[in-house]
């Protein structure tokens, strides 16, 4: 067996009286990839941060033993601990947007680590930084070295973050959800990069993730965390063959499977929504008089149809214009041109008043369940809002009844109506958002990435809920997502968007099993699969 690099025994972290990490023990061996998997709030990030002593002051940490290469980490003074962080243990955070300093060039930010840990000359540091940028495969490093974070794409920023973490030549690299904020194709590249670097340097990688499929390709060993406890530690192969703990099984079962699209019933129904040549352009203005010099073509001539009671999935990476399209359809963003026929009625020809009323038929559910509800309104009022606005004739008593019924439909307790949104978990909030959309009895709901902010098991529940609602009420969905596995679960038809245009559309089985366009193929390849 390999040597133990990091040994943790009996780590407990508590905030006030709430225990977040409860007596966990694990080892990370030299040169291996150790994955800590769990849902949000299970304490996986906290346990990593507590090893590096990066937790806020109100956290109470107790540990029986914490050894890094045989040396006790808990006995090191705070002053000397700086020599551990960065030099012995590197850390890559989840969000590359907020973890880089926007007013420093990326070269300076990488050099900073080396200035702290090594006694290099300026020329040597420059050479090292240059090497690192090459190492993390950033194109044109001689130019990029003097650029600022905002000039880089998300994937490149994450590469810079990795370069910074590598600058101290650590023995252990902790990667805290390193790809969650990235697109699928980029995600695959970053993971590949981490793997190559690990092979070259022989350092240990401690990967923290919620994504079992991703972990299955990367990790040597997997530990599953639930509510602050490690419930199972196993070899990756063993884990996916026969996981032991019931929670691990539950996680595995909740994984959306790409195979679920096969043999879906196909029947044709009347068209509900017909979009032709839809365009949304943003003008680029320059000069003193703000003349329009050019346009950003966010959505560039999109056409599609959606049948009654069916689901059309709109797939694409961030920035491809899929959200803009969704919002443009219900006039939250003004369109540039194109027609939208809803039930045979052209939406742009309606009077303002009729347009307001047609909102009852088309509703939207947003991605982020945290920002899509007014934090100062009661859940009951949030759900009631649409009823009040569109059906003012409904009296207060009837409205209360309807709200109670809606909450029941989305499987929330009746008492929720008198509580505030922040008292609910992410999945419950998304249910409230769905109830709000359902309140006005729409025929079409535009779901803008409704599950991407949620944990896997919760995601599966929300998708089930949406499916059931479709069955019982015959609602159509325009399902905007970047996750092809979710598409396979829910969609009848798929449209793939790339740079403002739809490049491929068709029945879900056909697109996912035999894609015609190269980009679709690329997307499919990038999806992490178990095994």
């Amino acid at each position: 067996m390999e040597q133990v690099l990091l040994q943790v025994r009996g780590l407990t972290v508590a905030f006030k009286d709430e225990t977040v990490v409860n007596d966990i023990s694990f080892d990370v061996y030299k040169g291996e990839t150790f994955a800590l998997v769990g849902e949000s709030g299970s304490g996986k990030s906290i346990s990593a941060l507590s090893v590096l002593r990066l937790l806020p002051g109100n956290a109470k940490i107790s540990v029986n033993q914490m050894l890094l290469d045989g040396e006790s980490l808990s006995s090191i003074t705070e002053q000397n601990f700086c020599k551990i962080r960065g030099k012995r243990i590197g850390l890559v955070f989840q969000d590359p947007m907020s973890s880089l300093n926007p007013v420093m060039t990326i070269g300076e930010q990488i050099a900073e680590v080396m200035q702290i840990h090594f006694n290099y000359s300026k020329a040597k540091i420059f050479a090292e930084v240059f090497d690192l940028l090459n190492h993390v495969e950033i194109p044109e490093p001689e130019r990029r070295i003097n650029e600022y974070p905002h000039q880089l794409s998300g994937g490149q920023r994450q590469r810079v973050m990795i370069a910074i973490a590598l600058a101290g030549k650590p023995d252990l690299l902790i990667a805290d959800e390193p790809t969650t904020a990235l697109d699928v194709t980029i995600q695959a590249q970053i993971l590949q990069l981490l793997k190559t670097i690990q092979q070259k340097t022989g350092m240990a990688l401690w990967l923290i993730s919620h994504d079992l499929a991703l972990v299955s390709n990367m990790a040597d060993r997997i530990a599953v965390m639930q509510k602050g406890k490690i419930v199972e530690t196993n070899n990756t192969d063993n884990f996916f063959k026969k996981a032991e703990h019931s929670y691990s099984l539950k996680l595995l079962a909740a994984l959306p499977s790409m195979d679920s699209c096969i043999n879906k019933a196909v029947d044709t129904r009347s068209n509900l929504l017909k979009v032709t040549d839809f365009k949304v352009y943003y003008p680029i203005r320059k000069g003193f008089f703000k003349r329009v010099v050019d346009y950003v073509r966010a959505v560039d001539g999109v056409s599609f149809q959606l049948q009654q009671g069916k689901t059309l999935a709109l797939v694409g990476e961030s920035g491809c214009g899929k959200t803009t399209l969704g919002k443009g359809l219900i006039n939250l963003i003004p369109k540039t041109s194109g027609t939208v026929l809803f039930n045979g009625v052209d939406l742009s020809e309606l009077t303002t008043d009729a347009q307001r009323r047609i909102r009852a038929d088309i509703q939207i559910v947003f991605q982020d369940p945290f920002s899509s509800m007014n934090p100062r309104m009661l859940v009951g009022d949030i759900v009631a809002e649409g009823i009040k606005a569109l059906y003012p004739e409904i009296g207060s008593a009837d409205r209360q009844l309807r709200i109670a019924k809606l909450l029941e439909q989305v499987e929330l307790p009746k008492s929720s109506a008198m509580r505030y949104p922040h008292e609910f978990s992410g999945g419950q909030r998304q249910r409230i958002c769905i109830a709000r959309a359902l309140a006005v009895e729409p025929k079409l709901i535009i779901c803008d990435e409704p599950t991407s902010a949620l944990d896997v098991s919760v995601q599966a529940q929300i998708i089930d809920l949406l499916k059931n609602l479709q069955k019982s009420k015959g609602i159509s969905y325009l399902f905007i997502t970047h996750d092809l596995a979710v598409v396979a679960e829910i969609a009848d038809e798929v449209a793939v968007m790339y740079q403002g245009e739809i490049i491929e559309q068709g029945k879900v089985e056909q697109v996912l099993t035999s894609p015609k366009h190269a980009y679709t193929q690329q997307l499919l390849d990038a999806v992490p699969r178990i095994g």
Partner: protein
Amino acid sequence: MIILWTDALIYMLVLASLFAGFFIFQKPHFQRPLKKISASKTGMVSLLLLVFFIFIGLLDSIHFKQSEGHSTEIISALDYWAKPLRSQSEKTYSAPFSAHLYSKEMITLADGSHSWGYPRLKFGGAHLKTPDKERLEDVLTKAAIGFAKGASIFILFIVLLWSYLHDRHKHLLNSPTAKALWIVVFLLVSISYMLIYLSDYYHVLGTDKVGEDVFYQAIKSIRTGLVIGSLTTMIMLPLAIVFGIMAGFFRGWVDDVIQYIYTTLNSIPSVLLIAASILMVQVYMSNHAEEFNSLILRSDMRLLFLCLILGVTSWTGLCRMLRAETLKLREMEYVQAAQALGVKQSTILIRHILPNVMHIVLISVVLDFSSLVLAEAVLSYINIGVDPTTYSWGNMINGARLEMAREPVVWWSLLASFVFMFSLVLAANLFADTVRNAFDPRRAEQGE
């Protein structure tokens, strides 16, 4: 009974806040924040202090005519009860609890000879035969008697209410907050009574240059401070909120127009505007002398206009902050969700934007409140503040400027205005803090 302009506005304000309070009590989902406020010690104690201040201010806002001998003057209910304080004026400065003037004068002795020394005061310590020996003992005894009397009034009151409270509202006696409150009420009643009792014999906070009692001045200033703080805020708030939210929400030309208005207003020195409007009011009043035939009417008009112009010049800062916050909020998904639900824009503004900027409004209003009271002092310095005959902490501080330069120093005016102003502003700050914490649902949960 005479109702001055500011009186009327104060009554309206008090009525409006009572109605608002009543409305809030009716709503079931406000029960939790209200409970949280009532459970907070600092919050309730500062509320109690605020109510005490407002009570004095209200007493001072009930004006009526009173004939005294051959002259008729307008006095307030407070003046009526504080008659000894008002009428017992000395010749010039005297220190707190002193029996002598603060400066030496030629004294004519009983036998007709003259001597150079500190003359006895007309009222302060006049009952003492040999003040040098008896004074300290007398002050302490009188203070103890006053305190005991005040305390016994409080205890009598409690005993009368005891059975009622004990049987029906046990929590009003037992909770830690209630205990703190009762202690503060006890201290307030006892100390107030002690001060009133002592004021019959001494000038508790000394006298000023023309021999007026400083304690009386400080109490009278409470109303001025409250009027300036609250009326100015009432004028400033609607402007700042309406313009700020509209600019942020509608963008485009609405935003441009509003931004131009406040940048223009900001670039004119506000002192200029204030001076101009105060001078205008004075000219108006001297042209319509028959309508402003008494001193108090004139100073009231000037106070009202000061509030008005202060309000008009001070809304820009808050407006800009609200605009920025609204710009952020309008991109929030819940605003878009409301739009998708066909909610009218005016409703979105009131239901989604306004409640979410209230914390900024509350904080800046409380901070403005204190800076307004101070602004009044600064404006008095260049003679465009409140009327010099109006009692105000600003005027007291302004006067203290010269007093501090004297040798020996006359410190009590400054100290009195400082203590009163400090306690009012601190109470307002702490109370606003509690309210803000209680009404923010995210914060309320953390039980902090």
